[in-house]
């Protein structure tokens, strides 16, 4: 019981902390979560983190909330999911309640604006760091199809603005087909 309480507490504190610093949209939380739960706490591995991200992205709603929920579920079941959702939702809820009361003063504050502008470069760097790690691993696997999927998905979403839902569907289908064909071949050889 003591250990369980400890895990819930750690889950809450971690997601609360990460969510407080997720500037610039849902995907920013993924690198932060990877650092915390994969590299630091080692509660899940990198592959599973990407699987959970894919599911979070395929479900409706905010990616940050979905990914936290899946992580909580994976670590401590349904109560874990409730704890992580609470941890993720509370920071924006508190901050926005306060800001909406003083929003004119907040918007015109030069210092806040300058710091936020400076922070963008840092946010982009944090994402670049994780993309180099994860993308490098996929290239090193020397699986041509995976590299192609990565390149085409990038072109589709970044340059062509294709709806993410279709990209997820098509890439999932490609992965499923690849597995099905390789299984069929194995059987044919036997």
């Amino acid at each position: 019981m003591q250990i369980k309480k400890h895990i819930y507490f750690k889950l809450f504190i971690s997601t609360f902390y990460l969510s407080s610093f997720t500037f610039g949209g849902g995907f920013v939380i993924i690198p932060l979560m990877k650092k915390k739960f994969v590299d630091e706490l080692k509660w899940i591995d990198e592959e599973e983190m990407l699987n959970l991200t894919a599911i979070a992205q395929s479900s409706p709603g905010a990616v940050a909330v979905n990914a936290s929920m899946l992580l909580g579920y994976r670590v401590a079941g349904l109560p874990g999911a409730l704890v992580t959702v609470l941890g993720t939702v509370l920071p924006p809820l508190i901050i926005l309640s306060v800001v909406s009361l003083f929003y004119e003063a907040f918007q015109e504050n030069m210092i806040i604006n300058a710091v936020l502008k400076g922070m963008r470069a840092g946010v982009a760097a944090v994402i670049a760091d994780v993309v180099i790690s994860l993308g490098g691993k996929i290239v090193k696997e020397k699986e041509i199809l995976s590299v192609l999927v990565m390149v085409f998905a990038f072109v589709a979403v970044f340059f062509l603005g294709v709806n993410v839902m279709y990209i997820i569907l098509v890439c999932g289908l490609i992965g499923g087909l690849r597995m099905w064909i390789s299984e069929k071949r194995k059987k044919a050889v036997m």
Partner: protein
Amino acid sequence: MPLLELFWSFFQVGLFSFGGGMAALPLIKNQVVDLHHWLTLTEFADLITIAEMTPGPIAINSATFVGTRIAGLEGALVATLGCILPSCIIVSFFAWLYFKYKDLKIIKGVLSGLRPAVVALIASAGLTILILAIWGEKGFSLDITSVNFVSVILFASAVYILRRWRPNPIAVMFGSGVIGGAIYLLM
């Protein structure tokens, strides 16, 4: 019944916004500006600015902002709850499916196709933010005078520091904010 309306409006936003972030914006505008007149268009534009300046998902930020203005703290809680409830239900179901069937060959195959796609999505989000940091709102251009060199240097040194010493990324984000902020204020 403003509370019930708030709940139902943001429930729909939560249910139909796939792809997160900016994809939710048109849905929020439709509910908040066009259907319910809770905000004017100018207030909605302010809301987007605030949502971008503060941490957290844009849908939850909007729910809190609109909820607070319509019905105070209760409104904020009800709208936020409405917004996350659809994801809670659907993601719980997907989580259950995933942990039950993740060892099936075919599911493993599907996930192996999704992993590179997810890396591409993260890369795309990162590049969008990088372009905003370097060229500002107008976007990419070849004109050298439109480049924000402070951002370029901050970005390059932050990537180097992250790769070389693997520090806490939040510290890097804040360091970049403080140093960049100081430079912008001095200029």
